[in-house]
């Protein structure tokens, strides 16, 4: 009974709660029982809010009993990546430098979840400041993949995807700067959507690469992804980079979700896909066959600049990061070194003690790329390459509705397998980075397993602000397949 409850999707759960068939408190208690049992194995959370969540659940039940109108996520237990500011609990970004930081305000998406009556269960682990592809860079704890606990959950939103896959919550929010929602979603066999840049407010999202970062949902089904988007998408006057709804109106992403896209034209980039492991390639080819059988037309295209995406990304993202992370200096908040003799040492020692290796590496790389004498060769060059990558997408979308490719060249790798070689780790972002550089939306959906029973993800990319069609395309596949219903053994 309890397992059935925990395996429901958000929409069913919400409908059941709103109709009074299911008690929100029962759901919340079930989730926390499960957290108590499995969190010591999975390690998905940095903080949980049991008391707070149970109280909120009871409040929602009371409202429903009283016949009051409740929000779109009434009673649904949701986890949020610890990169989002909340007035409750600490906001750590999985960094020692912010271990005790308590934000005095809520991120816009948190306010939206709260007003949709979601029950926020806890804040999930991640690579420190969202820098990484395995969650191994967390300065606070280790998260494992629920499908194989000797493997990474992917990253940087690995805590969120592990929590969703491990039934430690019903849905979660992550953030995606270069694949940080999609890649862990594929590693954990869940649905991860990176919306168009500007679709979801970044206010309260602790910045890594400001021109690339987007918040997005991590769910078990495409419908849940649409439901979450209904809650979080839209213009925010506090975020100058969130797009005006006159320019790009938000819509009800659930409304036409089950309506297949007619005369669907899918583009693939064969020479680019060749870099993936053969089992991944096979799974992607099989997925595309499913679409073909549904009547889709498949075209092969070239996107000549995608090969340069990693190079451009690691300059643009780190340059922005070097500046975004300058504020963590031990002066106004966050960790201050006890060994600082003067105010300069407050900076250099606090930062040396508070940041982990990967964060330091990226700050150094970004600082170098912006420093005098190197700006043109690295930063400016990267912006130009970014421009070429975007025009690859513009041209591609003139001829197709979406592009399909793998999410990651491999399935989940072993913990510690790539930590000694940062470049090798960076190269595993090859398929996800371009969407961030071009600002377009992309989703990862489960599309099979490898020989080790590790999930494989299919990535679908669509034109800017085309989330509604993107989700409908994803749903066409999901409706024909059972991959999303498979559960990790520990569940």
């Amino acid at each position, binding site marked *: 009974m309890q397992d059935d409850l925990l395996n429901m999707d958000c929409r069913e759960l919400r409908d059941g709660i709103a109709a009074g068939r299911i008690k929100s408190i029962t759901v919340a208690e079930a989730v926390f029982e499960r957290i108590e049992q499995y969190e010591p194995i999975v390690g998905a959370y940095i903080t949980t809010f049991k008391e707070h969540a149970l109280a909120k659940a009871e409040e929602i039940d009371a409202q429903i009993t009283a016949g009051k109108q409740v929000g779109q996520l009434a009673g649904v237990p949701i986890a949020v990546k610890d990169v989002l*500011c909340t007035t409750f609990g600490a906001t750590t*970004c999985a960094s020692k430098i912010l271990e005790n930081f308590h934000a005095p305000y809520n991120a816009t998406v948190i306010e939206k979840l709260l007003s949709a009556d979601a029950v926020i269960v806890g804040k999930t682990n991640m690579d420190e400041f969202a820098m990484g592809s395995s969650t191994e860079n967390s300065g606070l704890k280790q998260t494992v993949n629920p499908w194989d606990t000797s493997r990474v959950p992917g990253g940087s939103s690995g805590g969120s995807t592990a929590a969703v896959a491990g039934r430690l919550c019903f849905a979660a929010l992550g953030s995606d700067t270069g694949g940080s929602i999609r890649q862990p979603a594929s590693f954990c066999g869940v649905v991860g959507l990176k919306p168009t840049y500007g679709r979801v407010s970044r206010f309260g999202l602790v910045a890594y690469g400001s021109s690339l970062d987007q918040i997005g949902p991590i769910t078990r089904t495409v419908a849940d992804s649409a439901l979450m988007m209904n809650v979080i998408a839209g213009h925010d006057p506090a975020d100058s980079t969130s797009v005006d709804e006159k320019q790009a109106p938000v819509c009800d992403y659930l409304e036409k979700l089950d309506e297949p896209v007619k005369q669907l034209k899918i583009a693939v980039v064969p020479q680019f896909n060749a870099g993936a492991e053969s089992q991944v390639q096979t799974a992607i080819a099989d997925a595309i066959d499913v679409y073909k059988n549904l009547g889709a037309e498949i075209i092969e295209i070239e996107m000549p600049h995608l090969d340069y995406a990693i190079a451009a990304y690691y300059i643009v993202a780190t340059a922005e990061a070097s500046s975004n992370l300058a504020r963590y200096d031990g002066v106004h908040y966050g960790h201050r070194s006890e060994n600082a003799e003067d105010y300069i040492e407050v900076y250099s020692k606090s930062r040396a003690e508070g940041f982990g290796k990967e964060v330091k590496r990226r700050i150094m790389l970004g600082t170098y790329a912006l420093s005098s004498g190197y700006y043109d060769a690295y930063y400016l060059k990267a912006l130009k390459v970014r421009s070429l990558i975007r025009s690859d997408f513009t041209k591609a979308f003139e001829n197709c509705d979406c592009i399909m490719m793998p999410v990651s060249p491999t399935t989940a790798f072993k913990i510690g397998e790539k930590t000694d070689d940062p470049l090798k780790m960076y190269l595993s972002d090859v398929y996800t980075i371009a969407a961030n550089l071009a600002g377009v939306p992309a989703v990862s959906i489960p599309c099979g397993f490898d020989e080790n029973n590790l999930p494989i993800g299919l990535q679908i990319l669509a034109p800017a602000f085309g989330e509604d069609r993107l989700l409908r395309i994803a749903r066409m596949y999901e409706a024909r397949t059972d991959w999303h219903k498979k559960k990790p053994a520990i569940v």
Partner: protein
Amino acid sequence: MSNFPYKVVVGLEIHVQLCTKTKMFCGCAVEFGQPPNSRVCPVCLGMPGVLPVMNKQAFEHSVLVALALNCKIAEFTKWDRKSYYYPDLPKNYQISQYDLPLGANGFIEIPLDGGRTKRIGITRVHLEEDAGKNLHTAGNFSQVDLNRAGTPLLEIVTEPDMSSAAEVRALAVELQRMVRFLGVSVADMQKGHMRFEPNINLVITKDGSEYKTPIAEIKNLNSFRALERSVAVEEQRQLDEFLETGRVMGMGNKTTRGWDDAEQTTVLLREKEEAHDYRYFPEPDLVPVEMNERWLNDIKAGLCELPIKKQMRYVNEYNLSDYDAGVLTAERSTAEFFVQVVDAGGEPKRVCNLLTQAGLKLANEKVCSVAELGITAGNLAELAKMIEAGTVSASAGNTIMQEMVKSGAAPETIAEELNLMQKSDTGELETIVDEIIAANPKAVDDVKSGGKKCKKAHGFLLGQVMQKTKGQANPQIVSQILAEKLN
């Protein structure tokens, strides 16, 4: 001692704090003298996750100044981050404008002696956010107050077109008057609303060759006096240094010096080796600003006749001295009030005297502008007419004006109440004149003799009559009667 001819070359970097209600990128109030760290929010504190949103008023104020400085207004401008670490800079970068300032290639006319003007080039005008404040007075540590952090700041950079300390001062005063006229800044130097940083060097001719001394930038100037003095002092220091060392301008030998007001000297400030690698790059959290014609025209509607133009017009149109016109146009409201009074029938010079003498004194006492004293233009014109007609003396006029501020009553009423009307009744005055003539035969002789002493004796007799009437006689009429009686 040598006598090499040289020229001083000065350019200015100016920061003007704009008088908006709120900060540049957040809704915190811009207010002075508030308790430390009480006008701050997550945005201006640079907390994790915050984002800036532009203050439209600040941008429009800046464009207005750029227009007044004859700049070309950028159709497309954007924001950049300037990185450096300092405890009063919460994000450790300042949001500023680097390669695309909102205004460029302008000029300002500054007044020189004798009504002449000089045109000084304006290189660029851009908008940025101010830092907070570090205080070092508490003991063995420093205190940080971030109330000022994020205040909109306009940066103006001039061409190195000034060639004396006096010109530097003239530009500073002219700019202050301009931004006050435009209503975009309180522009109080003591309160740091305006900060001037001169860049100075000399071009020395020696043995037929020109030598340029290394540029020095001077900081910590918080009065016009200090600004002017610092340039003069630095000029001498650079000359002395050149004569002693022969050092000339070269790559990387620009220095920063601080003004020591107590010692009236400039002192070398220590610079960190990496201080100038600001790593500017486009601010990803803000979108660009695109100017269109309609918007620009709306902003242009806020322009007014600029002070220096007004000053020159007052000289020509109202026949005032350059000095008087300058005093009248120091403040826009005073200048405009002057015209209202003249239009109401006041004789320009009389009105000018009333406003710049009694008026400014009263305004200083009440800490307001002359226009805010509560005197109507009509009443003041009336007073000017009374003085002009001799109904009251000029000195009585000042007393009456003081009363007008107090009671708001009409000048005639006050003059009568205080018995300040001048006696113009010829009959009554003749009697007094006769008495004085009878009592001063010596002076009468002197006048009659028509010699050298005539004028002086006439004045003496006039003074006696005035004394006897306690200053209430109309001196012109008395003088007339005296002349008739003694000729």
